[in-house]
């Protein structure tokens, strides 16, 4: 069963890669601007033998992981707090809605102003962007609590903390998991974008160099690396989800069918 799913996934990827090979080969776009998969693969092969690539990858992943951890932690805590403390949600709604759409790219000068090309600069942008994803999902998730479950908890005198822990949190968890998956990708995107624009060390900076060097296959190779990272992150998230949400309809439904 698991093997079959993996095989299907691999088949999907293979089809996608084949498409990437065919489109430029048929002349739909020019090879020099959109290199075929094989060309990208060989550029990727060159990249991964280069030490600079690995240190860049390390830098990117560091920024990503720290930023994501902060964003998820803060997003969940703030989300639960805002939902649980009376009136806090109403009081913060307008501010949240105002701040959320402010693009991280517009904050780049601010980040540089404060931290230059340091890791903190990247973190600022990563956290700013991915925090909202987790927060909003948490808010919606907490709201999803079944009234009967909530009443049961209250009638047995469960305190606020116990209700959060035993009722709100499990209910919100599926939403939060989606939030984390969204935030993981956004954090990666922002880490790379920040490196790209600011020049903090990492994959993004490598992409910027490749772009301004007119090194098209190398640039695509690096983009593929970011895609693969996203893929791996998702596999991890799914694994966590299968364990943490074994009770949930979305997971148990899969087993039953």
């Amino acid at each position, binding site marked *: 069963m698991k093997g079959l799913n993996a095989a299907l996934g691999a088949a999907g990827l293979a089809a996608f890669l084949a498409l990437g090979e065919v489109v430029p080969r048929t002349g739909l*776009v020019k090879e020099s601007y959109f290199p075929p998969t094989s060309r990208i693969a060989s550029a990727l092969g060159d990249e991964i033998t280069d030490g600079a690539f690995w240190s860049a990858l390390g830098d990117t992943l560091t920024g990503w992981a720290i930023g994501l951890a902060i964003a998820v932690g803060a997003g969940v805590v703030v989300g639960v707090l805002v939902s649980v403390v009376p009136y806090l949600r109403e009081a913060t709604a307008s501010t949240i809605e105002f701040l959320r*759409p*402010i693009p991280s790219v517009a904050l780049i000068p*601010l980040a540089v102003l404060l931290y230059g090309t340091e890791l903190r600069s990247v973190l600022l942008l990563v956290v700013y962007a991915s925090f909202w994803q987790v927060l909003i999902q948490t808010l919606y998730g907490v709201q*999803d609590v079944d009234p009967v479950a909530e009443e049961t908890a209250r009638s047995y005198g469960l305190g606020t903390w116990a209700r959060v822990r035993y009722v709100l949190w499990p209910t919100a968890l599926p939403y939060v998991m*989606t939030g984390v998956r969204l935030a993981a990708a956004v954090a990666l995107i922002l880490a790379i974008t920040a490196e790209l624009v600011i020049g903090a060390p990492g994959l993004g900076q490598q992409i910027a160099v490749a772009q301004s060097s007119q090194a098209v296959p190398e640039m695509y190779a690096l983009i593929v690396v970011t895609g693969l990272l*996203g893929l791996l992150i998702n596999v991890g998230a799914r694994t966590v989800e299968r364990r943490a949400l074994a009770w949930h309809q979305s997971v148990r439904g899969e087993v039953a069918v």
Partner: protein
Amino acid sequence: MIGRVLLRAVFVLALPAVLIAVWWAASSGSVNPYWPPLRTILTTFPDVWTADRLRSDVLPSVLRLLGGYATAAVVGVALGTVIGSYRRVRALCEPVLEFLRAVPPPVLVPVIMLFAGIGNSMKVVVIASGCVWPILLNTVEGVRAVDSVMLETARSYGITGAARLRSLVLPSAGPQIFAGLRQALSIGIILMVISEMFAASNGIGFTVVQFQRSFAIPDMWTGILVLGLLGFVLSVVFQLVERRVLAWYHGLRASTRRSA
């Protein structure tokens, strides 16, 4: 009744008022050109965002945003429903989608330009390509989580196909889909800015980036304010829509919460 309206107004305005006051005080003596006093920003505001500018920059941006957002909503919900309903399809598509999802829009834009040109359609595609993910993911998860008893009810009454979709799957996944739509709204604004960094000649994002590049820093800050305001206004509209569409849901959830 009036009391409630007033209370709401207080809730909406209190925290922003405090934050603005803090900002005002903290920035009042600033000499750093990148961190101008709030007063300067506010006095610049009316000069920058004239009626003319609203027509020439804000309107095109909003239209692109709506176009991209609508595209993403349709694609995200449609694709999400299919992927969420069929385990095999999910296994097949998920890796590719996760791959695409992780590609940063600024590097994706050039690729999109190869296929969609450099006009408005490119910008709409860029906005849609970013908005679609939260909608897609939430739809998939919402569809997967449809209650088993309800599913069986529908099956036993032979409610299949479009009817099943319309009367069971979508309403049931509705709350989660709306969470995704909500996320997508602000992502759309962000991507609107990013897309207008490429081959644009008007738009809010374009203007903000131009201000930034030309060191018109207070003007740039007004642009950021406009983006925030746009986000706020759209979210108010969004909430109105959500209250309508998910009336049953909010009624159900509130039916006990309001009491005691």
